[in-house]
């Protein structure tokens, strides 16, 4: 195991929230509503701290949420990029 892997092990222990009881399924149910607000500039920590906590521990949910926010932002800006002008 490399130093990088060991650091990840440390980080994962550090990031273990005692009170994160949310499942991935419950978390993703909130995504659409939350992503619209975050894309519009709202602070996730204020909106739903429990979801924020789960996202900080769950890389799969975080990846999906960030992807959704990025697409909504692009849609709101009417896509500055399309398949024709990439």
């Amino acid at each position, binding site marked *: 195991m490399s130093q990088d892997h060991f650091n990840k092990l440390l980080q994962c222990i550090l990031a273990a929230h005692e009170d994160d009881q949310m499942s991935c399924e419950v978390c993703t149910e909130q995504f659409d509503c939350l992503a619209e607000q975050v894309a519009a500039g709202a602070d996730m920590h204020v909106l739903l701290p429990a979801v924020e906590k789960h996202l900080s521990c769950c890389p799969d949910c975080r990846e999906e949420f960030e992807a959704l926010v990025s697409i909504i932002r692009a849609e709101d800006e009417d896509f500055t990029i399309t*398949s024709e002008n990439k």
Partner: protein
Amino acid sequence: MQMQTERTNEQWLADLTGTPDVQSYALEDLRQRLQRGIFFYLSRERSDLAQLSNQELTQMAEDLAQDATLRVLENLNSFRGDSRFTTWATKIAVRVAISDLRRARYKDFRLDDLTADDELLPLTSKALLTSSTLTPEEAAERADVLTKIDRALRDALTERQYQALEAVAVRGVPLEVVAERMGTNRNALYKLVHDARRKLRSHLETQGISMAYMLDLFQD
């Protein structure tokens, strides 16, 4: 690509469950919309796909949008109206796209590839104890803590927790992929990893090793 018709949530639901002509038009609108979003994501947010041509990305986005549109149609009853319909549909498309990318990237991953129990920390130790800037005392202190971490990994965790923790938290393999290989689901695996992290942390703290102390000790 043509601009789609703007619809309210109610119109989307009505059109997608309407007469064959109306439904077909709405499905095509939805597919195009999802394809644009997926293409944006693949081309702008995925550096790991940077080597793909525009044509390849377009084809990939088309295929994923087709799958996502069908998935949206199958799940229409679960739309609760908490957001714009298109945002909800995009959420489903994101899941379809990212799941597909994860499966492709880790198609050859096997749980057997993970480090055997007795190899995890000795290899780490070698890397962490040979830094030229360490004094002999610091190296000894690190070795002592590594031994305790090694013991904690073995004593506090079940074999399944250990395997899941290593795959997900250390190796960075997506939960979805590991869950599939372990014959479980993402929710159950997240809980398994979460419990493993808490147990490990708690076990170390009872040994007098705080997280702050470990971070400080192993910071180079």
